[in-house]
């Protein structure tokens, strides 16, 4: 008994399944597997000709001869883009994927037939027909037949026990992610198998060979793939590892967490892990939607052309807008509550039935106009995207409940994996390469979101509260007398807003105080940059320098120290006093930076920062993340070694970091008065 890790089609037909249990791996054959080719012939006599292909599966109902066999392969499917008409297509089951692809290429190149349902890949479609995902736990019966041993749709499934290892490389300035010419000096290794779990920290690179055997034996290996050459030099045969995850981006997510996310996506979309590991989030999302379409017998074409309607330029300006975003008044605000719409965009898509085939459908009987746009939505039948999203919403809700009940971290990570799919679902609706995308559907969602939030803002005002800030699906509310909002008042307000908008809300955060940072280019605050002290005593930081990876450690340290001081304050008076103390902390860092013995006293790694592309340091840029330092003569790569800093640049960064924290207007700031 074990978990499927990979499925690879064989040249001679069928599929080889790789099954792992964390200790051993076995390969088994799925000889009965077949791959369907859907086509609509343009030439007469094409189907009888294709039926004589030697790689066609003989056990799938194509019995009889001539006309009988031809009828047996014909199926009725709905035609895009509106799916209101049916057409007859031929389904030819091939045992060999190579033969299928060869036939498909010929038919397309010669224009002999229209080929459909080529997306998602054939292996994913195979698992749809098998009825279990490509990471399912399977058992082997006596006759050699594989059977899933758990419910494929369950949320609390047993996490596959794949063995994994994670390798990270370091140099003097931090974790290195891009390899050009200089080898890193140290590495971290974490190995996790069924029997053992050990971690190696900051080992010298020369010792990597000692672990090559362990790394070669795991099911999943995560490492920056630009370092493959170093691994090969250390004696690791990368071909023995079935699944490798590229860790070329600075992320705190470890391989263990990434596996939980990928397995969850794989179980939702039935896509093999090998494909998911190399793809964007769009792949599981679109595969999930395609699964719904496939179940309804809706044809998926190779290319989709969904041209928008003519618009005047004023109409374009109105339609092509995003969510509602306020520019708040900068400063510190006390006793603020942040209310958040739960999964706002996916819920709107589901509630308003927004899908490419339902928006502006000329054949629709029952339509509803979207406020603020000229678009209409068909309400008579459920769209593909709303159905796919409703499954995700239900799954996320169950996972969230289970995670809270059982206190299980794995379930929480699965819930977050589904959340990311939901977050991406809206953006993908407007993506030009999306199979189930349409710019007008995207415009409908943003228009509805703006309308919903406007209603909420009006209702908050009517209920006697002040709206401080609006951020797409989030509203910052304060009592007019700035007193704390009680739990009863909050519940009443939430119920009112839910009635007005028809969407669920939750309390995202209750702040003792929240600061909207001043924007240096305007008198208003930056819309997405704020920090605040939660009622629990913790800090919530958004958009500040210290949470960005491109921030040098020296600036991050100063800002975090100042925030630590501000965190102790609760009341306006305490906050004003803390602000002066925080400025003192900044001054301390500033004077350290200004000191003449800087190169000797400080550690150079404090000045390095990680950026993508690095166009200012490297002519032509770099395809990856590199560490830079600002020197007297410009930016240079940290891997060249420490060559001094441009002190003025870092002092400017420190000043900018303080400006983000200080809510006082410039004049008040000069006088040293409170916020």
């Amino acid at each position: 008994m074990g978990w499927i890790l990979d499925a690879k089609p064989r040249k001679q037909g069928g599929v080889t399944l790789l099954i792992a249990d964390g200790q051993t791996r076995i390969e088994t054959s799925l000889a009965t597997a077949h791959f369907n080719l859907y086509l609509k012939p343009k030439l007469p006599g094409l189907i009888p000709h294709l039926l004589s292909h030697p790689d066609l599966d003989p056990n799938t109902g194509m019995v009889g001869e001539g006309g009988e066999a031809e009828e047996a392969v014909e199926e009725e499917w709905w035609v895009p883009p509106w799916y209101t008409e049916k057409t007859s297509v031929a389904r030819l089951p091939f045992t060999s994927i190579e033969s299928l692809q060869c036939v498909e290429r010929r038919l397309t190149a010669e224009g002999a037939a229209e080929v459909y349902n080529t997306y998602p890949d054939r292996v994913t479609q195979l698992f749809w027909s098998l009825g279990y995902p490509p990471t399912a736990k399977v058992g082997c019966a006596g006759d050699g037949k594989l059977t899933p041993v758990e419910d494929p749709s369950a949320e609390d499934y047993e996490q596959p026990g794949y063995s994994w290892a994670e390798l990270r490389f370091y140099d003097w300035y931090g974790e290195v992610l891009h390899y050009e010419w200089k080898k890193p000096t140290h590495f971290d290794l974490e190995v996790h198998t069924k029997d053992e779990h050990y971690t190696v920290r900051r080992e010298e690179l020369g010792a990597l060979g000692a672990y090559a055997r362990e790394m070669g034996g795991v099911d999943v290996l995560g490492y920056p793939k630009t370092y493959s050459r170093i691994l090969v030099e250390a004696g690791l045969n990368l071909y023995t590892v079935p699944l490798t995850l590229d860790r070329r981006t600075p992320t705190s997510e470890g391989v263990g967490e990434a596996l939980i996310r990928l397995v969850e996506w794989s179980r939702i979309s039935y896509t093999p892990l090998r494909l998911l590991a190399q793809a964007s989030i769009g792949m599981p999302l679109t595969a999930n939607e395609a699964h719904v379409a496939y179940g309804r017998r809706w044809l998926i074409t190779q290319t989709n052309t969904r041209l928008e309607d003519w618009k005047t330029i004023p109409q374009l300006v109105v339609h092509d807008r995003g969510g509602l975003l306020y520019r708040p008044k900068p400063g510190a605000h006390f006793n603020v509550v942040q209310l958040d719409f739960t999964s706002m965009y996916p819920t709107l898509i589901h509630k308003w039935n927004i899908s490419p085939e339902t928006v502006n459908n000329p054949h629709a009987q029952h339509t509803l106009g979207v406020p603020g746009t000229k678009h209409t939505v068909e309400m008579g039948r459920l769209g593909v995207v709303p159905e796919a999203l409703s499954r995700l919403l239900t799954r996320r809700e169950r996972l969230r409940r289970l995670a809270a009940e059982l206190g299980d971290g794995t379930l929480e990570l699965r819930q977050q994996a589904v959340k990311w799919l939901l977050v991406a679902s809206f953006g993908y609706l407007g993506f030009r390469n999306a199979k189930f995308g349409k710019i007008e559907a995207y415009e409908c969602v943003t228009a509805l979101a703006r309308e919903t939030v406007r209603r909420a803002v009006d209702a908050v005002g009517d209920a006697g509260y002040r709206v401080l800030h609006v951020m797409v699906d989030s509203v910052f509310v304060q009592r007019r007398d700035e007193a704390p909002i009680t739990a009863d008042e909050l519940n009443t307000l939430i119920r009112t807003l839910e009635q007005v908008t028809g969407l669920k809300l939750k309390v995202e955060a209750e702040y003792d105080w929240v600061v909207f940072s001043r924007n240096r280019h305007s008198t208003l605050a930056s819309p997405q940059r704020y920090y605040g002290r939660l009622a629990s005593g913790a800090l919530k930081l958004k958009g500040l320098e210290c949470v960005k990876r491109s921030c040098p450690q020296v600036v991050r340290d100063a800002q975090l120290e100042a925030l630590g001081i501000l965190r102790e304050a609760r009341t306006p008076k305490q906050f004003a006093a803390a602000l002066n103390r925080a400025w003192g902390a900044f001054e301390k860092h500033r004077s350290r930076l200004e000191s003449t013995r800087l190169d000797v006293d400080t550690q150079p790694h404090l000045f390095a920062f990680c950026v993508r592309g690095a166009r200012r340091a490297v002519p032509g840029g770099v395809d990856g993340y590199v560490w830079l330092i600002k020197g007297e003569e410009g930016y240079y790569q940290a891997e060249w070694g420490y060559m001094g800093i441009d002190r003025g640049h870092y002092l400017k960064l420190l000043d900018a970091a303080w400006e983000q924290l200080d809510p006082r207007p410039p004049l008040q700031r000069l006088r040293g008065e409170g916020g």
Partner: protein
Amino acid sequence: MDRAVEPTSAWWVTVYRQPHQGKVELRLGSAPLEEALQGFSFIEFYGEWPTVLRYLHYTLSANTDTRLIYVQLFGGINPYTLTHSDATLIVRCFDHNTLLEAFNRVGQDEQEGYTLLVANPYLHAKTPRQQTEITAHLRSVAQERRVITFNQETKTHTPKGGYFHASSVHILIHLETQRRRGRGVRRGIGGWDTLYATLTKHPAKPSNTHYTLHLDKNPHHNNLKTPTLLNWLQPTRVE
């Protein structure tokens, strides 16, 4: 440019000058240029994209009865500068197939009289085959109505789209700013409001004919609905 695509015979001019397409007057920033383009149905302005884009903004604001097929990914047209007019219709195309679909829609449109503007038609054309498809559609649409394309130039300063496209276009006009002529760009005459157009290909006129386009100095271009501060202080002129 190949001599074969630069014919100057009277026969060529007679074939391409189609009287039914010369009715709507176009405002292009220069009266001699407007006169030179009268009667031709497939015209192209090309050059560095920021220059061409600025000229496209001018063309949209100065003309009515136009429709724009806008091929885009990110950025590009700033619609907020053009909101005074609702006479121009626009459709955005985000990939190659959608662009062809837009051409088909215009081809089936029975409404006459409008000029079709196409911005950056070859942006998504990755292969010569796709370029040929676009050119074929443009030629087809140009049979029915006037088509003006706003195109990028390649590294060798030829219009994007290949030789088939360059030989299909009736008139090619290269746009440039003073910067390309080795001087700094200033405000006022000779600055950002001035473009230099060069006839690269014309059936009747000699190539290398130069025109100066004054984008904001055109007496015809008077945007009364969105006045400048100076317009606003002065009494509104009613024509």
